[in-house]
C-alpha cells in the first residue's frame, strides 16, 4: 500500500481524506490474504548448498526477535504479563520490546482492529523492515471474534496483512502466547533463503 499524504488545511478535509482511504481499504479487503506458509512442506533439495549458512542466519534471527507490541484491547494485558518476570519472554531473546516499527521484527497484534485502526495498522506493517513476521493474537485479531458482524471491526486481521502465526483464545493465556512464539521460531528457522519476501533483496 502506498502512503499518500495529500494537502489538508482543515480538520474537515483531513476527515474526508481519512474517510475516503478507509472506505477504499474496506472495498479492497474483501477476502483474506493467504498466510505465508510456503515453509511448511518446503523440500530443502533445491537449497542443499545453502543449508549451512541458512541455518546459522536463521538461528541468529530466531534468538533475537524484537517484538513490536500492538496492543489494542485486553490481549495486551496477557502480552505484558508474558513479557515480565513470571513468564519471562527474555528466555527467547525477545525482551527488547520496541515501540518503533523500524526497529521491530515481529508485530504482535493483541486485540480488536477496527477499520479506522486498520489503516494505521497497515501503515505500521509497511514501515517494518524485512524480514518481518506477524502474530495475530486472540479471537478478535484472528477472525473479528464476537465483533465479526459489527459495523466497525475487521473480520480478521488477515484481511489487511499476511499473518504468520495465529494464537486462539479470548484472551490467550501467556503460556499459549509463548507456544505461539515457539511456533514462530520453528517457522523462522525453516525459511530464510527460500522466503519469497527475502529473495528480492
Amino acid at each position, binding site marked *: 500500500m502506498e502512503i499518500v499524504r495529500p494537502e489538508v488545511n482543515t*480538520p*474537515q478535509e483531513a*476527515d474526508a481524506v481519512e*474517510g475516503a482511504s*478507509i*472506505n477504499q481499504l474496506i472495498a479492497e479487503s474483501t477476502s483474506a490474504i493467504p498466510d505465508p506458509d510456503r515453509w511448511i512442506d518446503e523440500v530443502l533439495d533445491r537449497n542443499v548448498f545453502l543449508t549451512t549458512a541458512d541455518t546459522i542466519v536463521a538461528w541468529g534471527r530466531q534468538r533475537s526477535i524484537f517484538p513490536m507490541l500492538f496492543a489494542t484491547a485486553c490481549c495486551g494485558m496477557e502480552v505484558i504479563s508474558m513479557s515480565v518476570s513470571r513468564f519471562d519472554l527474555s528466555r527467547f531473546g525477545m525482551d527488547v520490546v520496541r515501540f518503533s516499527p523500524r526497529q521491530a521484527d515481529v508485530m504482535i497484534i493483541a486485540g480488536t482492529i477496527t477499520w*479506522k485502526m486498520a489503516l494505521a495498522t497497515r501503515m505500521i506493517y509497511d514501515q517494518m523492515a524485512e524480514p518481518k513476521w506477524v502474530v495475530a493474537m486472540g479471537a478478535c485479531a484472528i477472525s473479528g471474534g464476537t465483533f465479526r458482524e459489527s*459495523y*466497525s471491526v475487521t473480520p480478521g486481521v488477515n484481511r489487511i496483512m499476511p499473518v504468520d502465526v495465529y494464537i486462539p483464545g479470548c484472551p490467550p493465556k501467556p503460556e499459549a502466547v509463548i507456544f505461539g512464539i515457539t511456533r514462530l521460531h520453528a517457522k523462522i528457522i525453516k525459511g530464510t533463503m527460500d522466503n519469497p519476501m527475502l529473495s528480492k533483496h
Partner: protein
Amino acid sequence: MTVVTSGEDLAKKIAEAIPGSVISSDKTSVMVDAAKLAQVAEFLKNTPGLDFNYLNFATAVDYIDYFELVYRLLSMEHNHSLVLKTRCYDRENPTVPSIVSLWRGAYFQEREMFDMFGIKFEGHPDLRRLLTWEGFKGYPLRRDYL
C-alpha cells in the same frame, strides 16, 4: 455526598422562570421541551442556588418513536445533581439545540451522539463524525440500523 435534587421541586422553579418548558418530572429527573432546552440549560447553570456548573455526561437513547436525550448535571458548589431529559420526535432530521456554549464538556459527547444517532445539534461549532469515519453510511446505534 452528592444530593440528588428533587426533580419535582426543580420543575416548579423551571416552569416559573420559563413557562411551558417542563413536560413532566419525577423524583430524580425533569423532562423539558426540546425547543426550550437551551433556555432551561442556561437557567440551570446561571441561577444562584442552582449553579449546575458541571456536565457529567450527555447521551441519547433510541426508543424508536422518539430519541430521548439525557443530560446529567452536577453543581460543584452545592454538591447536588440532576438528570435533565428531552425528547426529539423527528426521525428523519432530528434537531436539538446545542449546549456546548454552556458546558464545553458537551463538545465531544454531542459529536458522538451525532455520529451514533444522527441527531443534529444546532449551534455546535464543529459537528463531524467522531468514532466512525467520514463517508460511513447510517447511524449505528439506531434501533433500525442494519
